[in-house]
């Protein structure tokens, strides 16, 4: 684990200037005709214009391939609803991008084992995309979540985020904010925040090593786990209660619109803390470009040396996969060529790492994870995350192993607990029931009905 963390640190710090020799893309020779290949969507819809401008630069940069991007589906469409009809019609896109559906896709996409591009990625970032030894996809970036804060508000209330090491420190900080007339924290009621990110706070603290955490998943899938007897679970619930007690979110609507409102409140200085991730930063900077927004750990217990109390959760939000069923060898070559260009050429790296600007300008604002990256991540928060990674203070995204649709169920349970519709014991039991009998994809088990 320590080694792999060092590798992430290396990947991030490499953007400061370690340059590695990267093999030149294979298309240096001119081609007589162009092969068309396709990609499903633009990684995330929020960066659609930035991604398309990268494609616009890629196509004329060589003479062998043309990348055509299928438009993003409405956000209510799930990955499976998009790709299953295309596979039925023998019309799958060459490049696809997903996270929790990787186990379902493993036999339909090429393996990246031994490829130059996968060789540039720290091995722990490939773990979640490795099924029975086959590297199914390569990562786009890393994202982090934890407590976001508005630096100016914390300064006014005399709160130093670096001094918060325990749950009671955090409560003291909340009280200090309220004493100065600020709302202490916004605890989001959106299902994906509660179901994927906040839920992960339990799983990632449930063991100090990767194998210990996977054993917790094993016991849940076997049905032998009793969460109510688990001190980490009780700390998780106590942390939930603390955030709820000080949250300004007293009338939850359970709707996605709440995300933008909460971000606006943090940017305007109404609220001091927000439990979210660095994907909120573009919205924050749009609301107040001069603000400084940091990210810090969410302490889970009152032991200042407790595992993970000083760390933030860092993980890969999605992996690129290349179809092997419906595509031709030339199309697969084109797909590899594009991804290589995107992550290793100077022009591609600017599209990846430059900060996203207004109206689709700029790059995708990704934190670089490929060795040999020469373009620096631009923003204050990206710098803060790089610092956590550099200091080995990262927690695993165990939510990567959540079964497809699991986060919806955990999110519903979290919402019910938030408004007091169920007790902590019901919450624990609901989580246990949702896990019981699920295939152990983290052990390479296949997904079936």
């Amino acid at each position, binding site marked *: 684990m320590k080694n792999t963390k060092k590798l992430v640190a290396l990947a991030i710090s490499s953007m400061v200037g370690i340059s590695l020799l990267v093999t030149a893309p294979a298309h240096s020779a001119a081609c007589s005709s162009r092969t068309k290949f396709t990609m499903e969507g633009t990684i995330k819809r929020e960066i659609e214009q930035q991604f398309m401008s990268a494609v616009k630069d890629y196509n004329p940069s060589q003479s062998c391939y043309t990348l055509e991007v299928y438009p993003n589906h409405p956000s*209510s469409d*799930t990955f*499976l609803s998009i790709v*299953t009809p295309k596979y039925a019609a023998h019309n799958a896109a060459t490049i696809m991008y997903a996270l929790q*559906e990787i186990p379902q896709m493993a036999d339909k996409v090429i393996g990246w084992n031994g490829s130059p591009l996968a060789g540039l990625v720290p091995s722990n970032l490939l773990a979640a995309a490795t099924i029975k030894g086959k590297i199914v996809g390569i990562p786009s970036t890393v994202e982090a979540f934890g407590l976001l804060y508005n630096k100016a508000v914390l300064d006014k209330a005399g709160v130093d985020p670096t001094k918060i090491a325990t749950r009671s420190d955090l409560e003291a900080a909340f009280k200090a904010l309220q004493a100065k007339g600020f709302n202490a924290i916004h605890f989001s009621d959106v299902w994906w925040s509660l179901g994927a990110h906040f839920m992960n706070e339990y799983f990632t603290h449930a063991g100090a090593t990767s194998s210990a955490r996977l054993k917790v998943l094993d016991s849940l899938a076997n049905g032998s786990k009793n969460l109510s007897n688990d001190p980490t679970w009780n700390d998780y619930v106590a942390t939930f209660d603390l955030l709820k007690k000080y949250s300004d979110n007293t*009338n939850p*609507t359970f*709707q996605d619109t709440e995300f933008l409102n909460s971000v606006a409140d943090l940017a305007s200085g109404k609220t001091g803390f927000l439990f979210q991730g660095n994907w909120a930063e573009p919205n924050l900077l749009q609301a107040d470009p001069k603000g400084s927004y940091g990210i810090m750990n969410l302490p889970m217990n009152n032991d200042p040396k407790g595992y993970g109390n000083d760390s933030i959760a860092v993980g890969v939000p999605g992996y690129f996969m290349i179809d092997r069923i419906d595509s031709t060898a030339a199309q697969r070559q084109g797909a590899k060529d594009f991804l290589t260009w995107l992550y290793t050429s100077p022009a591609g790296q600017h599209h990846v790492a430059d900060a996203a600007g207004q109206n689709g300008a700029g790059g995708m604002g990704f934190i670089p994870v490929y060795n040999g990256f020469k373009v620096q991540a631009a923003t204050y928060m990206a710098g803060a995350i790089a610092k956590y990674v550099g200091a080995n203070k990262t927690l695993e995204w165990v939510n990567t192993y959540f079964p497809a649709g699991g986060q919806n169920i955990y999110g519903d349970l979290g919402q019910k607990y938030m408004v007091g519709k169920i007790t902590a014991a019901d919450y624990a039991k609901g989580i246990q029931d949702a896990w019981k009998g699920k295939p152990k994809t983290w052990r390479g088990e296949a997904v079936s009905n």
Partner: protein
Amino acid sequence: MMLKNPLIKKYAYFGLIPSIFFLSILAYPFVQGAYLTFTNWNGFGYTKVIGFPNYLHAVQDPVFWSTIWFTVKFVIGSVIAVNAVAFGLALLVTSKLKSSNVFRTFFFIPNLIGGIALGVIWQFIFNNILTGLSHKFALPFFKSSLLGTTGGAYWALILVTVWQSSGYMMIIYITGLVSIDNEVLEAAKVDGASALRTLWNIKMPLMVQAFTISLFLTLRNGFMAYDVNLSLTGGGPFRTTELVSMHVYNEAFSYGHFGSGQAKAVIMFIFVALAALLQVGVSKRLEANS
């Protein structure tokens, strides 16, 4: 040639093409879909026929039953509300008002807005405008969004459905009302029947077909409702306002349970078919009696 018989020839010209369309885009997918529920289909393909486990999994899911119950409540509520409002509007715009044509147009307009857009608009009204007004003027109601509770979201769904489809049903009722022979109405007037009596004993029995059509359409729309559900409540809070279409979609495409999702779709088909047959049967009897 085999096409000597002129009837067969006629059928070949006018019947075959529609039959091929019917078989290929309706019958075949339906049979295929029903067949897949007996296999271990995972969305991409299947390897063996497994029998009934998908149905077992479907009927053992408590969320499925609560979804069906919620859908039935929604269908009852929306069928009553939509038809009552639509019939009322139809009476209003066929009365001798000068501006009745303008009203007809206005009442019909919400039907021209797609369900998704309508849901988003109303979500904004419920979440931001109503709560905003409530806080500004310290009103005792709408302090928090209707969509935050199951009961509130139910009425929000009914309200938006009424808003969306009563204009359309109104048109059907107008057709029924204007098709009544004026002589009958005049005869009633001469006999001294009150307006209410005319409505109950003359107009409504003579336009029972309009009720049959409208009830069938609203019933079907209620069971199949998806777009407003998706964009207005998204199934929340806590998956308690998922109508059955959305539940089937989520089961298959969010959770990846394609087999049991498809089995639930088949169960839903049986429900809708039974409800529609029952309704049409009852209405036909009314038509025959009138």
